[in-house]
Structures are given as C-alpha cells and as structure tokens.
C-alpha cells in the first residue's frame, strides 16, 4: 500500500527532472545562439562607467579611452522634416550614408559584421539610443567585453527583434573602417557616430544619456543592403 502511495509523486518528480534536464539543454542552446548574436548589452542607462576601464577584444586586453566626449555638440537641426531622414548602409561598399530627403548629410566608411556574423539586411528603425553602454558576448577566442561603447543606436524590425542586439555604434578598439570587422553591428568612427547620434530620432530629452523610441518619438529608418 505504501508503495502505491509513493508511485505517483515519484512519477511526477521524474517528469519534472526530465523537463529540468531539457531546460538545461535549452539554456546551452540559447547560449550558443547568443554568441551568434550581435553586440547585445544589458546596460540601458546610457551612463559612463568609471569603475572598469579594461576592454577585451580578440583575445587582447587594453585600456578604454577615458572620455570620448570631445565636444558635446548641439543637435544639428535639419531643414527638411524629420520624416525624410534616413540612414543607408551599403554593405558591399562598407559605407554609410545619412540622407536628409535627397540631400546627403554625411558619408563615412563603416565596419559591418564579418561573413560568419553578418549584419542583417532590410529596413529597420532605431528603438533605443544609448550615450554609453557595455557590450559583452562571444565565446573563447572571440569573447569580447567592451565598456563605454559610445553612441549606440540599436535598430530592429519584425524579423530582427530588439533582443537580437543589432545596432550602429562608435568603436574605439579598431580603426579599420571600410572593412567588415564586427560581430554583426555596424561600427562607426567615433566622430561620425557622435554626429549621427544627435541627428537621428528618437530625439534625446535634455540632460539624458538614453532614450527609447515611442509612438510620439519614433526612431529613424535604417536601410541596410548589399
């Protein structure tokens, strides 16, 4: 009789254990997927980190520049309405063009994702802008941990949701613009990133270091193509 009483709880526990094992497998599969992900962050404050100034990239450790804020530039006011501003990224040319209607606002060399971590193509919108953020990802030799990445503009669309972590941002760890270099994001020279950061929407409220896009403060369109 006692045996019978214990059978059901045992069965349920067994079931739970099996499903827990599956959870662990799911977790490791997700971890693998995440290494294929771009420049994800978990810091959405936009603030400068003063505590840790050590960066790791391609197996090298190096110091982080103390502050890139060369000049806190005023937002550049366009002549045309904001709805016509958009950013074009040409992956084959490794060039970024910022258009104000039909006027070219700026053109600059970029570094998009390496062939095994390609930058997604399509039409996106910026969903969050961060003055500074820490990006961490990759595994083993490809592990990177980059504090205070300047001027990040994360973008997304229906196919590439926000948590995949693709964006435009300044890069202080290389100066190889014009050639693919990144884990999927679009790397920009810092002065270019700075100019774009204050040019695109969502527009930054006074004194803030981060801003999310909303229906009233919609993100700039980004078109990425071959």
């Amino acid at each position, binding site marked *: 009789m006692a045996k*019978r*009483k214990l*059978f*059901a709880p045992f*069965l*349920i526990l067994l*079931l*739970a254990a099996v*499903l*827990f094992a*599956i*959870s*662990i497998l*799911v*977790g490791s599969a*997700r971890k693998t997927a*995440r290494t294929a992900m771009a420049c*994800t*962050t*978990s810091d*959405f404050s936009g603030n400068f980190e003063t505590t840790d100034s050590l960066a790791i990239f391609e197996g090298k450790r190096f110091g982080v520049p103390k502050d890139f804020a060369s000049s806190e530039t005023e937002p550049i006011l366009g002549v045309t309405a904001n709805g016509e501003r958009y950013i074009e990224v040409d992956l084959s040319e490794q060039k970024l063009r910022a258009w104000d209607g039909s006027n070219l606002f700026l053109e600059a060399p970029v570094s998009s994702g390496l062939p095994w971590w390609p930058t997604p193509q399509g039409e996106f919108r910026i*969903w*969050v802008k961060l003055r500074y953020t820490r990006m961490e990802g990759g595994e083993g030799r490809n592990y990177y941990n980059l504090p205070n990445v300047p001027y990040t503009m*994360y973008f997304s669309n229906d196919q590439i*949701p*926000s*948590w995949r*972590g693709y964006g435009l941002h300044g890069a202080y760890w290389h100066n190889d613009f014009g050639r693919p270099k990144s884990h999927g994001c679009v790397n920009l020279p810092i002065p270019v990133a700075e100019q774009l950061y204050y040019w695109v929407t969502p527009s930054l409220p006074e004194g803030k270091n981060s801003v*999310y896009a909303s229906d009233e403060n919609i993100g700039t369109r980004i078109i990425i193509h071959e």
Partner: protein
Amino acid sequence: MSEALVTFLASFLLWVMFLGVLVLWLIDGRIKKEVALHAIFALVLAWVLAEMIKNLFPTVRPFSENGLTPLTLTVPIGGAFPSGHAASAFALATSIFLHQKRLGFIFLLGAFGVGAGRVLSNVHFPLDIVGGVVLGVLSAYLVKRVHLFGLFKGKS
C-alpha cells in the same frame, strides 16, 4: 543553472502540474474524477479568456521593450497582458485547492513558481501575472459554482 531554472519554471512547470493532475487522477487516485475535470475545465477556460484579452487588447512584452533575452522555450508572440501561463496555473491550483486543501496548497506553490518564472524570463511584467492570477482564480470559482462536472455527467 539559474537560467535553466527560470526556463523550467516559465515553460515546463505548467506541464508538470497538468500531467501531475492526470497522474494523481488516473494512476494514483488521490484526485477524484470530479476534481480533476473541474481543474482541467478551469485551466482551459482561463487560457481561452487570457488569449482573448491578449488578442483584443495587445500589449508589449518586456523583452521587446528592454532588449533582454526571453528565457522561455519558445519566444512568445502577441500580447502580454494577462499571462496565459499564470492564468492556467492558478486556475488549476485554485480549483484543486477548493476541493482538497493540502494538495491544492502544493499546486498553488507551483503556480507561484510559474508566475515568477514568466517574469524572470522577461516575457511578462508583474502586472500581467496579477491579471493572470485574477483570471485563473475567477475561472476556478466559476467552474466550481456552475459545477461543470454535474452538467457533463448529466449529458452523457
């Protein structure tokens, strides 16, 4: 490991609870047919109601707002409020609790686990869980009040 626990709570615990009811009813006999069927009816009712609200009044899920990774088995699409998982889990647990206090208490603990897991896995805001709990508890009371088992029995 903690990530695996969150995934387990968010995506699998509800199934453990559901299959647990079946095992305790069909194999063990600790749960009577009436209690089991009430619990399952309540679960289905709560789930359907939650799906209806989600589809009629879609709300944004945390992971699409803050960019954190959803830690669930599959990435949920559609509205956030209320949580269908929380609604189902609490419908099941409350339903059992109304008939069998001690066993129901264990199921309620499980239901809290499901709610916590859905929040920790970045797929629901705490308010979505509260909505789910209200929906689940209401469904359980409704099913018991109407005594669906009686209707079911009367028909067959």
